[in-house]
């Protein structure tokens, strides 16, 4: 029996579920191996008997919260895909602004019509079995997850920093240009795409662990002459770190 797969979107650009459609040549192989039963971007027929549910987007409205609970009830395995679902993503930028301001800014004079809550990852509302982070989600990682799931193998995310992939690609480190790249703190898996194209990592795949944040706090205070608020803003961009100061 082919596993029944569904794809859902909460608040976000739905770019991650689109990324699945962008798998193009590999998509046919996947469709051969699974049965897609619920996918707004790609079909009209829907059922609610689901083995693996993929969710992109953050929980950012009361409807999101209701919807994700409903999805959880109907999926044996729930997988958060993309920075929004895994970390809250860009949506969390509003968490650092007064609600009145961002509501006016986003919805104009219809602001009262749209209820909104603090943006958060779906794991803060329901139990999530796997996370495939990144903005957007990494297609190869999605394929690797599906391959593992079909074979019944345990899937794990890389447990090392973006620097590993950056060094393997032979890049010149951005610190040599005086930039504060978040690579040493951020979970790898993106093949260091941002540093490879000359932009510092902004931790869209999330922070590795508490230890690296502590190390960052010490290093940036003791070894570098930088505005900590700027670094904090980068850490907050995708919701990787929400606190007001580095440990």
């Amino acid at each position, binding site marked *: 029996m082919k596993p029944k797969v569904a794809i859902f979107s909460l608040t976000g650009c739905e770019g991650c579920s689109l990324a699945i459609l962008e798998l193009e040549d*590999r998509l046919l*192989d*996947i469709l051969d*191996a699974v049965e897609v039963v619920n996918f707004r971007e790609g079909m009209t027929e829907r059922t609610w008997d689901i083995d693996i549910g993929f969710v992109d987007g953050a929980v950012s409205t009361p409807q999101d919260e209701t919807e994700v609970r409903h999805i959880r009830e109907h999926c044996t395995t729930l997988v958060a895909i993309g920075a929004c679902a895994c970390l809250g993503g860009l949506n969390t930028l509003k968490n650092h602004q007064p609600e009145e301001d961002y509501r006016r800014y986003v919805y104009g004079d219809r602001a009262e019509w749209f209820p909104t809550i603090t943006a958060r990852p779906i794991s803060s509302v329901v139990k999530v079995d796997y996370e495939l982070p990144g903005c957007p989600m990494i297609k190869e990682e999605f*394929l690797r997850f*599906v*391959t593992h799931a*079909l*074979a019944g193998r345990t899937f794990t995310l890389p*447990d*090392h*920093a973006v*620097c*590993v992939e950056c*060094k*393997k*690609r*032979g890049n*010149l*480190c951005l*610190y*040599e*240009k*005086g930039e504060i*790249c978040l*690579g*040493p*703190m951020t979970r790898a898996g993106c093949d260091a795409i941002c540093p490879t194209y*000359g932009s510092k990592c902004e931790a869209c795949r999330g922070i590795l662990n508490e*230890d*690296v944040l*502590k*190390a*960052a706090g*010490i*290093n940036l205070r*003791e*070894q570098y002459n930088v505005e900590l608020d700027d670094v904090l803003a980068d850490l907050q961009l995708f919701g990787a770190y929400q606190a007001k100061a580095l440990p």
Partner: protein
Amino acid sequence: MLDRVISRDDLHALIDGLALQRRLIGPVVRKAPECRPPWRYFYQPVDRAEQLDLSFSYCVYSPKPFLFPPQETLFQFERVDGGFTARPQLADRPTALVGVHPCDLNAIQLLDHVFSAAPADRHYRARRDNTFIVGVDCARPCTDGVFCADLDSHEAHGGFDVMLYPLDGDAESAGTTPGRYGVVFGSRAGGEWVRYGRRGEVPTAADERTFDRYQRQKRTAFPHALKTPADELPQLLERSYDSLLWEATARRCYSCGSCNLVCPTCYCFDIKDQTTLGGDGGQRRRQWDGCQLRGFAQVAGGHNFRSRPAARLRHRIYRKAKWIRERTGLRGCVGCARCDRACTARINTVEIYNQLTEEV
């Protein structure tokens, strides 16, 4: 003793000849936008000798990736009626590495030793056996912070087919292009390359005197950085296992592994299978690993033999200055300071050795 002297133009002609038969790799300068001054050098494939800068300072990465790549497929496998078949993948494309500094030659000697010990690593050997290496000597330290002279790895001790000594480059001023090189053969292939190429001359007594002077100047050009002589580092570390320095330093460590991954002597790897979606075939791949990475010493069941950053930092330093030396008699560290330059936490190995020296 020199085997030949050769002019810059003749050398270029020889290298261009090499490029007809081999993929040519050597130091190339990269400027903006990737680099800000000072410009950085990288080993990369080129077509002609002219594109190389043999008076380069240092290359950001060592030539190791061309012998032991960051990731490679070892073999492909496929399910066939109940069993499976496997096809090894060996990279035997003829390659010439031109412009390798003594530190990196010493590191290549260690890689050769490790990957050739029985059972030899066929994948490494295939690349190595098809690689022709032309070393070029450093008349002065390539940059601040290196400690190659402490480890006597500012001199080539082998690992090359041909070694070049820049004879009339001015040892005092960086970046001058020498017009003449002294040549030392390191292998039969190296000697044949120069002799059959009909380039270069037999050195005269005056050339030998120039070479002597070059070596004397070189000895004074390299400062020493370590307070403990390199051959006493194993004893120093032996005494320092419980030093507080490891925790104190590692509180800054990200465990990012950059120090491992840029190191010319790090040879650890991990092996993983990549299977097709249907599970009926795939590839066995290996990629660089590093002892500073958290998962490195984690075993089945989840136990981690070195779960603390301090234990991992200590382990790396012990490998570099003690265990590899004791086990192989070769240098585990060649003093290139790439680890120190790569560390965004500014953890510095020379400081570690010198602080330990102060402690005991």
